[in-house]
Every structure is written in structure tokens, then in C-alpha cells.
């Protein structure tokens, strides 16, 4: 998949990097839900850029200068992964995307790129307290 001189690298199906830390990060669960149905602009270190549409059904539409590709996207642990055919690249994903706020993400190909979501879904409502009891007095 040739996209603006940029290809997904071969990494097999292994998601590298942090795992198990994606429960509730700064603003909600890190499951990629904020990206469903939205487009992210990606600028690579060499200056080339793509846009990635994250379809709600898990498909990804990758558009570069004069080249387009389809694939799939997924979140595994703290990795956001794009896959097309047998090619896959995963990026470190440790916080939710915020519209217009660029994130510098390191990939499993040892490259850093700049990701800016054009828009995102709002974070899910935080769960209401169910465990902490209403406390009278000071426990000491």
C-alpha cells in the first residue's frame, strides 16, 4: 500500500509497547471510541501526510496524496493499529484524542508522527459513584 511514499511496515500481529494500562486514562476508556466515524490527519517525520478515516465498523480508509487504501483499525492494549493485508503498523496510544489537539505518536516501526483528529466523539459519561459510602465524621 503506497501512500505518499509512506507504507505500513511489517510487524506481524504483535502489538508492542505498553499493555494492560488502558482501563480509564485521562478522560475515559482507551478503546478508540472517540475516533469511530471520524478522520485523523497524520503527518510523518518526512513531511508526508495522510488522512485516516476510522469507520465505526472497524474499517479504515487511508488517503494520501494520489493514493488511497482500505484496511482495518483496532486498539490492542495501548496500541492503535492499522492493518492492510498482511501489513500492520501500531502506534503508542496512551490517551484519548481531542479534536484539533495534535499528538505525537511513536510507531512499532520506530517512527514518530503527528496525529490530529479533525473531530472526535465525546467521552462517555463518567460512572456515578457506587462504592464510596456517604461518610459522616472523620475517620482519624
Amino acid at each position, binding site marked *: 500500500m503506497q501512500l505518499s511514499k509512506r507504507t505500513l511496515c511489517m510487524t506481524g500481529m504483535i502489538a508492542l509497547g*505498553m*499493555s*494492560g*494500562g*488502558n*482501563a*480509564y*486514562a*485521562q*478522560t*475515559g*476508556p482507551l*478503546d*478508540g471510541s472517540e475516533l469511530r466515524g471520524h478522520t485523523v490527519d497524520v503527518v510523518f517525520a518526512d513531511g508526508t501526510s495522510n488522512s485516516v478515516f476510522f469507520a465505526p465498523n*472497524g474499517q479504515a480508509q487511508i488517503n494520501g496524496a494520489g493514493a488511497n487504501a482500505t484496511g482495518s*483499525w*483496532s*486498539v*490492542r*492494549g495501548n496500541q492503535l493499529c492499522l492493518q492492510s493485508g498482511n501489513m500492520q503498523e501500531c502506534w503508542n496510544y*496512551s*490517551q484519548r484524542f*481531542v479534536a484539533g*489537539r495534535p*499528538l505525537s505518536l511513536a510507531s512499532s516501526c520506530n517512527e514518530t508522527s503527528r496525529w490530529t483528529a479533525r473531530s472526535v466523539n465525546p*467521552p462517555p459519561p*463518567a*460512572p*456515578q*459513584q*457506587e*462504592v*464510596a*459510602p*456517604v*461518610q*459522616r*465524621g*472523620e*475517620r*482519624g
Partner: protein
Amino acid sequence: MGSTALARGDGDLTTYYADQELANIANQYSPPILDYGEFGKSQQQNNLLVTRFAAAIRDFDRRWGVLPQFDLVYTRRLAEGASGDDVTQLRLRLGLSSKPFYDPALSEKIFAYRRDHGLASGFHADEALIISLNKGHGAHRRVLNVNLQRAKELPVFLGKKFILVDAAKQQLYMFEDGRSVKSMRVIVGKPSDPTPMMAGLIRYSVLNPYWNIPPDLTRDRYAPRVIARGESYLQSAGFEALSDWTSEATILQHDEVNWQAVAKGETELRLRQRPGPGNGMGAIKFMFPNDFGVYLHDTPGKTLFTRESRALSAGCVRVEFPWLLAKWIYGERPVTNTLEPEQNVPLPQPMPVYLTYFTVMPTPFGLDYRDDIYNRDDRTQLLSAKMDSPI
């Protein structure tokens, strides 16, 4: 208390947000309305603890994540000068060349391993080292991940000035402009009454405080003592029973209370301790409204701070130098011109306070491991695994 807090955790395995205002900021639902100084204006993506953990984890992986992972059999205690097949295996496991000699290179490697994995300092190979190696890099890494996750649960903007209590370290830190400027020992909850992980805002302090005793402590601890020792116990301890939890509550006489029913949990009683030298809150308590009844406060039991293990309270955080803390929070020592009990001193600018629990913390001198006194690490790993749901 009836807080309407937007909760983001249960306080045990995840951080509980006690204050709606702080929760809003943490969630980035609304812009900071507190004076968060330069931090509030920045576009930083991680708080300083996350940044610190991320760097430490990268370094940890670089040092230890690339080594061959195979189990060793513990044969004997080894030190420099030893030789044999077990030395060869140990060298290979630590990424050194295959030879049967315990040379200075192996000593140095083992010293570094022990330092980075929380083992007693040394150049030797003992059973603890072999057990640690056999756990594998992933197990050690998961502990770091658990603690990273705890750091991530805190707001990106921790505040220009904030208080961080680390219950695992049993230490309080005063942060200003991104660095710890003062620190003191604290007494935290005992394992049966753990101090929750919580984020709140200190909104006022109370001088000459009452200690309002939570009903469960009255039931389990104090009602039995009153039954055993009679009215004199109430007098000597400075306790008074009250009719209810309102500001109009009246003081009850000893014989107006059915203490047996209180001890059995059939009747709930408001008990409080009058201000004075023996008051459990000491001379000042720092109030950040929350549903746990957990606060920072002074204590009459100063000698307990000399203990190495200070998990002794019923969940509150007793601070070693409350007036130093008060002066730092207010800019001057808060005073009251009356001896009347329960004198509130408002804090014009609420102060963020984070009750945290880090069983390992990156420091300039390496990773600082602490005992998992509340047995939270394994349970947090299980919780994380359960919530790890790929699309």
C-alpha cells in the same frame, strides 16, 4: 456529607474524584477555573508523574527487556570469584558471554539488576535474585504499568501548587511549579482501613477541631469501651454523645444512650471528641469534602512518626508537621482569635490534594520500590485485564 462528586473510581483500585470541580478539569470537560498557573495554559499531554514513569519504563525496557527469558535453578549463593555451570547460566540469562566465571562484569550487572528490581543492594546472586529473574521481565513490567496507570488517573494539570500523599511510601509531598519543594512523613490507613486513592480540593481548614467519629468506629471501637469502663471513659477521653448530625444537635447524657444497642449496630450514635491535647484530629484538620471521611490532620500521637511502617490510622492521613503544611497552603499560619471549637478558616484558592498509592516510583536515583501494603497491585492487574477490550 452527600457529595455530588463525579466519581471516576472506587478509591481502592482506581482513583476516586471527590470534587466535581477537579473532576471537570481532569476530564477536560471545562477549562480550568482554578489558578493552575502555567500548567493550565500549557498543552502538555501528560502530567509530570506520567512523564516520569514513561521515561523510567523506556529505560527499564532498554536495560532488561531485551534479555533472554529462561528459568534458572537456584543452586547456591554466588559472589565474585565463583565459577561453575550455574554461573554460566546466570551470565547468559543476564545477557553476558558464556563462560563459567563470576567476574566484575557479572557483579556490575547483578548490582544494576538488584537496584532496578527492588532487591536488597549488592553484587551477589542469592535466591531472591533467582526468584526475581524467574518471574520474567513481563511480570516486573506489569507492576510498572499498574503504577503508570495510577499516575494516568490523575489530572493532566495537577496544579501550580498541590499536595501529593503517597500512601505506599507513607509520605506527603508539597509540589510547586512542577517539583517537590517540601516533604514530610504521614501516618496512613492500616491494611484493614486503607487510605483510598482520591483526588480532592482542600477548601478550608478547621482550628480547635472536634473529632466527629464515624458511626462504624463508634459502634466497633468506642461503644464497647464505654460499656466496659462506664461514664468515666467518656469523660476521660473527652467524648460527648450528640442527638444527631445536624448543627442543632444537643448533647446527650451517658444514661440517655443505649450503649448496648449502639455496640450492636441497632442504634446509630454521633460521638465527638472535644478539642484539646488528646483530640484525635490534633489542633488542625484540612478539609477536602469527600464521602470517605478521609482528611489530612494533626495528631496527638507524634511518636508514631518515628516508626518505619506507619500504616496505623483508620484511613485518614495524619501529618507530621501540620503547621508547616498550613503555612505553605495559606502563605501564613492560619490563626483564630477565639478558643471556641471548630473554627473554620476558608482557603480562597482551593488546593488540589491527591491521595495516591505508588508501589514503585521513579526517582533520580532509580526505581524506589515500596511494599504493597494494601495488596492492590495484583487486583489492579486483574481489573485492567478485564477492561482491556479490543474492538
